[in-house]
């Protein structure tokens, strides 16, 4: 039986729901606890970001542990930007040892976006090779240097893919590559352009990849028009259609956030109907308190208890 609740839920055939917690920009552990409290009972697993956008935050590892203690199944995100293969393998062993059994392999946003743009980046290995590393540690019991691992880490290996990045034509191939490397679940970038996501899913199904990996569709509710615009213009790899911004503009100012939630719930329902989608990944950044109503609104509450 898998140590990962997320894996158990997905294997059982239930439509999975994962959430996200961004750690605080300080050592105050209560911030994580408060965020977690909003999500309790509404998600099968919770992502913990790793210095996202290259902004220094409490480590993903520490924050994952806090959430573990609260009864969550943490999905520890790990970027290749800040650590070499020695530190990575070390952290993987540590995480597994402390009951963190889901790992999301990412390249990591370039440091120029964050609060330490003068830092040196690492990128010793890339996300594809990170997936291979985890598989090797877990299945072969070997370190990258070839030595034996005494006590293999039990990991449910995840990755990310962006159906909205360029070049579009290789985005399904890239997912297939990650599957070949050993990825077991994938969370996509948040979806606002459902048509484009559908196209990507078509390409994915053509390659037969949807049967080899659990695909969780990324969903983010727009809190404000400003947020939608910011994501459209300033976040690389985001596709925010004008129609969405127009829809938010079309309601009175005090109703915009409600409309954002409505759109998110509609998107969940639409992607749920697409063949090959095994769940959703809800990224309600700094808006975790609205997750319960979105999960309920989409008919995804209560979450299954799979043993």
């Amino acid at each position, binding site marked *: 039986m898998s140590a990962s609740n997320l894996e158990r839920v997905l294997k059982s055939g239930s439509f999975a729901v994962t959430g996200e917690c961004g750690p605080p920009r300080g050592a105050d552990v209560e911030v994580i606890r408060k965020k977690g409290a909003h999500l309790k009972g509404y998600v099968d697993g919770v992502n913990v970001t790793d210095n996202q956008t290259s902004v220094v935050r409490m480590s993903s590892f520490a924050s994952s542990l806090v959430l573990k203690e609260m009864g969550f199944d943490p999905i520890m995100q790990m970027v290749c930007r800040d650590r070499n293969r020695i530190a990575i393998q070390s952290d993987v062993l540590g995480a597994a040892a402390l009951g963190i059994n889901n790992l999301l392999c990412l390249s990591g946003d370039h440091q120029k976006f964050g609060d330490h743009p003068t830092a040196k980046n690492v990128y010793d*290995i*890339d996300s594809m090779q990170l997936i291979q590393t985890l598989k090797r540690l877990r299945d072969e019991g070997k370190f990258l240097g070839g030595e034996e691992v005494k006590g293999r880490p039990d990991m449910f290996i995840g990755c990310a893919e962006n159906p909205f*990045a360029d*070049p579009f034509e290789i985005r399904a191939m890239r997912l297939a*590559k990650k599957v070949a490397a050993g990825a077991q679940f994938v969370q996509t970038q948040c979806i606002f352009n459902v048509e484009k996501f559908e196209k990507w899913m078509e390409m994915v199904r053509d390659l037969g990849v949807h049967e080899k990996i659990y695909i969780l569709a990324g969903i983010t509710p727009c809190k404000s028009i400003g947020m939608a615009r910011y994501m459209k213009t300033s976040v*690389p790899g985001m596709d925010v259609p004008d129609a969405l911004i127009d829809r938010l503009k079309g309601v009175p100012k005090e109703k915009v956030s409600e409309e954002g939630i409505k759109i998110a719930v509609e998107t969940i329902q639409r992607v749920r109907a697409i063949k090959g989608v095994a769940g959703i990944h809800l990224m309600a950044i700094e808006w975790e308190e609205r997750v319960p109503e979105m999960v309920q609104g989409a008919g995804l509450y209560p979450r299954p208890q799979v043993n």
Partner: protein
Amino acid sequence: MIVANRKPFEEIVEMVKPYHKVLLLGCNECVTVCATGGSKEVAVLASELRLYREKEGQPIEITEHTLERNCDPEYVESLRPMVGNYDAVMSMACGCGIQFVGEHYRDMRVLPAVNTTFDGVTEEQGVWAERCLGCGNCILDKTLGICPVTRCAKSLFNGPCGGSTGGKCEVNKDTPCGWQLIVDRLKEMNLMEKYMEIQPLKDWSTSHGGGPRKRVREDLKL
């Protein structure tokens, strides 16, 4: 060629502040090609410094001298008769040349007038761009002649990342996405299936991370 940029004028002025007689060195190779430290640029910087120091009421004497190269001992040795006449040497050569002159004239301050940046090519007159960072383990055969280590901001071996937009890198919208270039080349050559090959881990021990490097040809040593 090695590409460099002249340091900001304030930095240069600060460095030569204590000196009254300076030898300003240029190089006829790489820094000439990228219009940073050849004889023309040496002449212009010398002129600027004289004007500035005259204006400040602290005249400076600058001798302009451009060597064929600053990275071979024969050329650097040619300075021996003159070097002692100066308070300091300022060099517009690349970091290799600046250091080499310092190694040969140990009681001389050798100051850098440029910031050495990258190894690159002339994309068009007036535009030089990075191509190689000397990883010591060339895989250009695998990526159809486009280097993922240098052309990708994250040196991904299995790119592109999720930030590639419109063929441009997330780091700079004027920088082409290295992996877009590789994919385009694969398409051009009808080799898209190569994209599915997972590139193995890089052995970085051959790059600078493995320690300062040296190449020796015993058969050439005198």
